[in-house]
């Protein structure tokens, strides 16, 4: 797997220029785009995710690694779109209606992409109908719902209920600074991530890839 290891290392260091160069080099040598994605980019991001979880690296390092991964993805995407990318799962992500906070949600989105998920980000102030519609249309495996205020947290319940009454079998995950496991249980969410790294673990678990 020579070459891929180096790409992974450069992702970990957040060196987007090297990631770009090495990805192109690997493609020129005839490596499969899917292998570069899994063995290089995602492998690198997974290491960052693990280190983040253990408090060995911090938010800026995650952002840098995500940017480096993106640089590699830009080269792989056109090829992968032709052949069809094998994502490990599809996540619809958004902050609930009435809530404008997005920093935590964006971090979760980056880490999920880094773990090989396809992420559809609906942004902030997302009504429950929009979650339902997108989950149905995109046939998502998981929906990730964020809220940062105690006044908007009940919207998570509304959204989960709307998904259930639309008879969608999607798994639900919630997160936000004030969310607890107890609250997640109360509103029947399938998963709760206390931070972005745990959210990724939970997401993998929920689709049977934990």
């Amino acid at each position, binding site marked *: 797997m020579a070459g891929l290891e180096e790409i992974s290392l450069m992702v970990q260091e957040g060196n987007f220029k090297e990631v770009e160069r090495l990805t192109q080099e690997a493609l020129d040598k005839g490596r499969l785009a899917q292998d570069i994605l899994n063995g290089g980019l995602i492998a690198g991001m997974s290491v960052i995710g693990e280190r983040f979880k253990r408090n060995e690296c911090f938010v800026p390092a995650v952002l840098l690694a995500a940017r480096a991964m993106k640089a590699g993805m830009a080269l792989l995407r056109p090829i992968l779109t032709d052949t069809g990318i094998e994502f490990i799962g599809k996540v619809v992500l958004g902050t609930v209606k009435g809530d*404008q906070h997005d*920093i935590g949600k964006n971090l979760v989105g980056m880490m999920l992409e880094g773990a090989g998920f396809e992420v559809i980000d609906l942004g902030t102030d997302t009504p429950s109908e929009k979650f339902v519609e997108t989950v149905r249309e995109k046939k998502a495996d998981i929906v990730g719902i964020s809220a940062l205020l105690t006044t908007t947290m009940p919207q998570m319940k509304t959204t989960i209920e709307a998904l259930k009454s639309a008879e969608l079998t999607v798994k639900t995950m919630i997160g936000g600074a*004030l969310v607890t496991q107890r609250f997640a249980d109360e509103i029947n969410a399938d998963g709760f991530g206390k931070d972005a790294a745990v959210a990724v673990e939970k997401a993998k678990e929920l689709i049977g890839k934990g």
Partner: protein
Amino acid sequence: MLVVGERINSSRKGIEPAVRGRNAELITKEAKDQVDAGAHVIDVNTATLMDEEVESLKWAVQIIQDSVAVPICIDSPNTVAVAEVLPLCKGKAMINSITAEKERYAKLIPLIQEHKPNVVGLCMDDRGMPDSAEDRIRIASGLIRRLTSDGVPIGDIYIDPVVTPVSTDTRYGMAVLEAIEAIMEGFPGVHTICGLSNVSYGLPKRKQVNQMFLVMAMTKGLDAAILDPCDRRIMANLITTIILLGRDKFCMNYLAAFRQGKFD
């Protein structure tokens, strides 16, 4: 420099169970400790109790007022909580916070007109969180104009520029600092206030970042802060900064703090 003590917040470890269990001893101790350490106002937030927030807040505010003589800051995103608790407050309470979001503004303004509390005006509108200094200044200007035209004295307004974490974008530090400066210069008589600790989200040794940010914000004109007054180092920095800014005549406060052992 107005110090609002932030420790009685149900999202802080140990507080939610104490509030749920109506542990008056623990809550009043938290209030007294903060006043002893230099807090001028005690912030009370029981929002994580959700359905029981209002009742819990009423209870907490009453026992705190019975034990310390400083005003309360009602800290809740829930306008019902503000409506229920504001009439119970002694002296000039503070509310945290009003925003430029239409619905929240409309619900809170009649309460403010009736009870005349100090008001934290958070720089958020229906378009969302501010990004740049310009966003913050635009939202603050709009809020100050509306509040004053609705009869709120400018000296009762404390603008919170919304501190966002530098770990996600290193421009955020300067965005807040520039906004504080522009707001203080543009609207004489208005106050600025910050919940500081957001600035260090996602970084190690967060206190280090919070402490420096307070000092920097004070040099831009920040004249109120929501912080943990029991953190001796942050209070020592604050007292020291006040002399260096020429706001402590004959260094009286600094020397008093020295004699009280606050720098040990």
